[in-house]
Structures are given as C-alpha cells and as structure tokens.
C-alpha cells in the first residue's frame, strides 16, 4: 500500500533521520566529560548543512514523470512541488551557511539552534506538497514552532525574549484562524481534500452576496486571512518589524526566506486549484495594494537596518500578491519568478547584514564610508539594493516588470500603476544606502571584521545571479511556466 509512497517521501525520511542522528550526536558529545564538554555548534552546523544539500539530489532523483498522489491523497507531487522543494532546500542550505560563523562569533553553545533548523526544513516540503487542509495545517505548525524556539534562543537578551514571545503569540493566531476557516469549509462541504474541494467548487460563485452559502464564504475568507498573516501581508503584518528587529539576526534571515517559498506554494494550490474563483481574488488585490503602499512608505521612516529589511519584505509581499490577484497562468508564473528573485535578493541582503553585524551594525548610518573601508562589499551591497528597488538591468526589475505585465494582461489596471509608483518611492531609501556608503563621512569610522569564506560565497553567487539574470532569463521562465501549469491543470 505504501511502498511507492516511501520511495517518493525519501527526501523527507532522510531529513527526519538526519535530524534525529544529529540531535543524539550533539547531546551525547556536548555533555560528555571525556571531551571536556565541547561546544558543538559549528560541528553540528556543518553536519546539518551537509544533510540539507544531500536532500536536494534526493528530491531531484525522485522527480516525477507525471502527477503522483501520496499517503491517501494527503500530499501530491507534480512539477510545481518538485521545483519548489528543490529551491526551498537550496535556500535553507544557504541560510545554514550563514549560521555557521554566526553562532561561533556570538559564542552560543546551543547546538539545538542548528538542529531546530532541520524540522522546518523537513515540514516545508510537506507543506509545498500538501493536498489536504489538515495536511497543510499540520505542516505549518512544526515550521513555526521551531522558529519561535530559535527566535527566543538568546536568553540573556531582552530583545530576543520579547521578540520570541511576540512571534509566538502573533504566530499562534494565524494558524488558528486558518484552522477555523478549514473547519468552516469542512463543515459546509464535508471535504478536506483539495481535489474534492475543487470538484465541489467548480462553477461555484464565492462572492458575499452571490454566495449560495455564507459559511463557505466565511471559511474561505478565514483561510485567506490565516495565510496572509503568515507571509506578513499588510493588514496582519504588525508583528514582523518588531520580531525581525529583536530576534537574533539569523532568525531574521530565516523567516523571510524559506516560508516565503513554502506558504505561497501552498496558497497557490489552495487558491488556484481548490477555490479558484476570480471574485475571491479581490482579497488578494486589496492585500497587494495595501502591502505595496505600506511597505514603501513605512520603510522611508526607518533608521534601523533590520526594520527596514522587514518593511521592504512586506512591500515585496505586496508585489508578489499581484500574481495571486491575477489568477491567470501569466500571473502565477510571474509570482513564481518574483518569489525566486525575492528569495535570492533576501539571501544576499541577510548575508550582508550578518557579515557586518560584528560591531553592533544596527543603524543604516553605520554603513558610512563603507566604500572606503571595504570597497568590494560596498559595491556588492549597492548591487543588492538596486534590484530591490527595481532598477532596470538587474533581476529585481525583471520580476517586477513581469508582475506588472501580468497585472495589465489580466485587466487589473489599478494594481500596476500603484506598483510602479510605490516602487519609485521605494527607490528613495534603497538609493539612500548607496549615498551613505559612498558620499557620507561618519564621525566614527566603523571597521568590520572580514566575512568568513562560507558566507562570502553567498553574496558572490547571488550577485552573479542578480546581475546576469536579464541577459539569459529563459531557463527560469521555462521552469516557472511549467510550475504554473501544475496547479492549473
């Protein structure tokens, strides 16, 4: 009954076993008197890092020829999940690379903070391939639980504990709302499986006034709200800046990267496949407009780097939501390209923030005269900020352009102008980075410690991708088109 399932779930099984082995290894040796209680953070970090990229070829080897339903129709494997999972594993691996030096410098001895990166890494592929609302919920929870633990891991810092509890409280509500939505849907349809729901909702009009059942309307709205607070879209974004600011930088690096892949992937499955209805996309439109405006305006007032990154990530969620609000194949494709490029840029930016972190790198003004103390880093950071702003020859402009193009193509004529205007506004504070680095002379010169080799690879690779994306974008366009066809067909 399950033989083929075990083959298809081999990456997840591998990751679970790797987590267990790493946990036991760490706890046995870190408490051993014989080895003088060694701090195993870096060691466990390397082993954890090894296990994540090892999983990637396992996913690739198990690439499906067609669609496969697994575990009693609870999860599905097709092209979109396959590419999403590979990309997710790569991004998690890059986050782990960032961790390696961080924990050593912070002299944190808790190897568990590395080990607790692996359970989310395992549950996010489940989330990507989830094909049932219960499976979705069960996959959301472990990923958030581990993030709460890591966010509150610096027990001697007030900011970290505060951020951890805030993250926990604000992170516990959205799955609750989502769960309430799922139970409304289940109560009114008697189905939790996405395929059955898709059959039920074919030709069903989900508007508030045209609805045959207001319970279903409520259920879908609750699901949308639950999802959107998980990806910090605007009406429910409040926690993000404080959490990003307070928690350890490595946590700041993780939530904007990995869940930004897994949660939209699942939202695609839900919103495009199960509850596909153009009227419902108004929710996404509103969310998108609000996020773009708030992201652009609120980030202008920020002086702290991590808050600024948080607001810019909120703004980018707005741009990505344009893709949802179209609901066309072009829209989904542009959304996937947008996620891909956003994650690349965020990996880059987080690696920068982590590299400069040593001397209390907190305020944007601390970047002053970086062009003279560390010219290559200054060039790299300016190259990073330009695609965030969407300045033409780089990757970020490609993704934004394609999103606006999809919005115009599907007739969402209000989204594209707002997107363009907010992206012009956001140029202000992105270019302010460059101005600070190149023309400001600060009172105190801050000399940063050089980056370690592992971390320095990340900006190098991502800057290469960002710069050379537009000359040869066809592979990613092909891949994302194929992915977009997955939930649509």
């Amino acid at each position: 009954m399950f033989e083929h399932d075990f083959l298809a779930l081999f990456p997840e099984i591998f990751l679970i076993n790797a987590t267990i082995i790493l946990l036991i290894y760490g706890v046995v040796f870190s408490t051993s008197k014989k080895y003088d209680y060694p701090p195993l953070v870096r060691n466990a970090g390397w082993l954890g890092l090894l296990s994540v990229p090892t999983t990637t070829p396992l996913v690739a080897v198990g690439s499906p020829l067609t669609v496969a339903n697994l575990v009693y129709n609870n999860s599905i494997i097709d092209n979109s999940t396959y590419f999403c999972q590979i990309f997710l594993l790569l991004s998690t691996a890059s986050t782990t690379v960032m961790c390696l030096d961080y924990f050593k410098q912070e002299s944190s001895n808790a190897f568990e903070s590395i080990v607790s990166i692996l359970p989310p890494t395992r549950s996010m592929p489940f989330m990507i391939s989830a094909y049932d609302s219960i499976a979705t919920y069960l996959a959301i929870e472990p990923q958030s639980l581990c993030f709460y633990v890591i966010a509150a891991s610096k027990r001697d810092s007030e900011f970290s504990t505060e951020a951890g509890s805030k993250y926990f409280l604000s992170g516990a509500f959205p799955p609750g709302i989502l769960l309430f939505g799922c139970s409304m849907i289940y109560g009114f349809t008697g189905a939790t499986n996405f395929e059955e729901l898709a059959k039920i909702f074919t030709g069903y009009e989900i508007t508030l006034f045209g609805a045959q059942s207001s319970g279903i309307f409520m259920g879908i709205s609750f699901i949308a709200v639950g999802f959107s607070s998980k990806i910090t879209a605007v009406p429910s974004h409040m926690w993000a800046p404080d959490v990003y600011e307070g928690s350890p930088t490595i946590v700041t690096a993780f939530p904007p990267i990995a869940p930004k892949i897994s949660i939209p992937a699942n939202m695609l499955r839900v919103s495009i496949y199960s509850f596909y209805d153009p009227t419902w996309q108004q929710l996404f439109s509103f969310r998108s407009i609000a996020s773009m405006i708030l992201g652009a305006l609120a980030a202008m007032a920020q002086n702290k780097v991590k808050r600024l990154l948080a607001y810019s990530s909120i703004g980018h969620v707005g741009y990505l939501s344009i893709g949802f609000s179209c609901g066309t194949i072009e829209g989904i494709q542009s959304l996937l390209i947008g996620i891909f490029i956003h994650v690349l840029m965020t990996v880059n930016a987080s690696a920068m923030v982590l590299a400069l972190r040593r001397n209390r790198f907190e305020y944007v003004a601390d970047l002053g005269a970086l062009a003279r103390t560390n010219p290559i880093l200054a060039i790299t950071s300016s190259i990073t900020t330009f695609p965030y702003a969407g300045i033409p020859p780089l990757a970020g402009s490609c993704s934004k352009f394609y999103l606006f193009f999809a919005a115009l193509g599907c007739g969402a004529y209000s989204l594209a102008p707002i997107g363009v205007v907010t992206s012009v506004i956001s140029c202000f504070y992105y270019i302010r980075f460059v101005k600070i680095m190149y023309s400001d002379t600060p009172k105190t010169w801050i000399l940063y410690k050089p980056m370690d080799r592992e971390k320095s690879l990340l900006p190098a690779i991502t800057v290469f991708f960002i710069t050379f994306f537009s000359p040869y974008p066809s592979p990613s366009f092909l891949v994302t088109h194929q992915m977009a066809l997955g939930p649509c067909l």
Partner: protein
Amino acid sequence: MEFAPILVYLVISLPLSLISIGVSSLFASSFGSAYPEKLSAHECGSDPSDDARSRFDIRFYLVPISSIIFDSEVTSLFPWAVPPNNIGLFGFWSMTVFSSISTIGSVHEWKKGALDWE
C-alpha cells in the same frame, strides 16, 4: 447513558463534602476568636525569616512540560492499543516509529540532564 450515574455521584459528593466541612464548625469551641499568633505563618515556631517570595526552580516547569508531552503520546497510544487485530503489522510499525521519535526526545532530555533532581 452510562454517564448518568457518574453525574449523580458528582451531585451527591458535593453536598456530602460540604456537610463534612460544615459540621465541624458547628461544634468548634471558640469560633471567630483567633488571635494574631494563631493567624501567623507557621515556620517551625520562629518568626518568618525573610520574604516569602523565592526564585522559582525551573525544574518545576521542566517536569510538567515533559509530562504534557508524554501524556499526549499516551493519548495516541490508547486507540492504538485497543484494536491490535484490526490494524495489523502496518499499524504496529507506524506506532513504533511514532514512539521511537518521542523516545529520541526523551533521550535528549535525559542526556541534557533535565530529568536530574540533584
């Protein structure tokens, strides 16, 4: 319907316990004439030495947390244990995987020293 006797038990046991508390007050000698010495906190005869608030030991949290975890494991073991004939070897091995994962958790807890009480 089998719960009805339990409900009756509950209803009867409440006044019974109230009666057994209340009867003693009927026969108590100097009811309501407590003097300060009698109302003070009992600390082996001497006066209380310092503030009653003390730093709370973290172990009193660790033990409940682990018991919550293993309670939930037991909760899922109950439906597994009742029909062993119906689920076959597959059901057996599924639960074995489940309990071995939580065993890993308790091994971690044990090696970490969370179960030590001095």
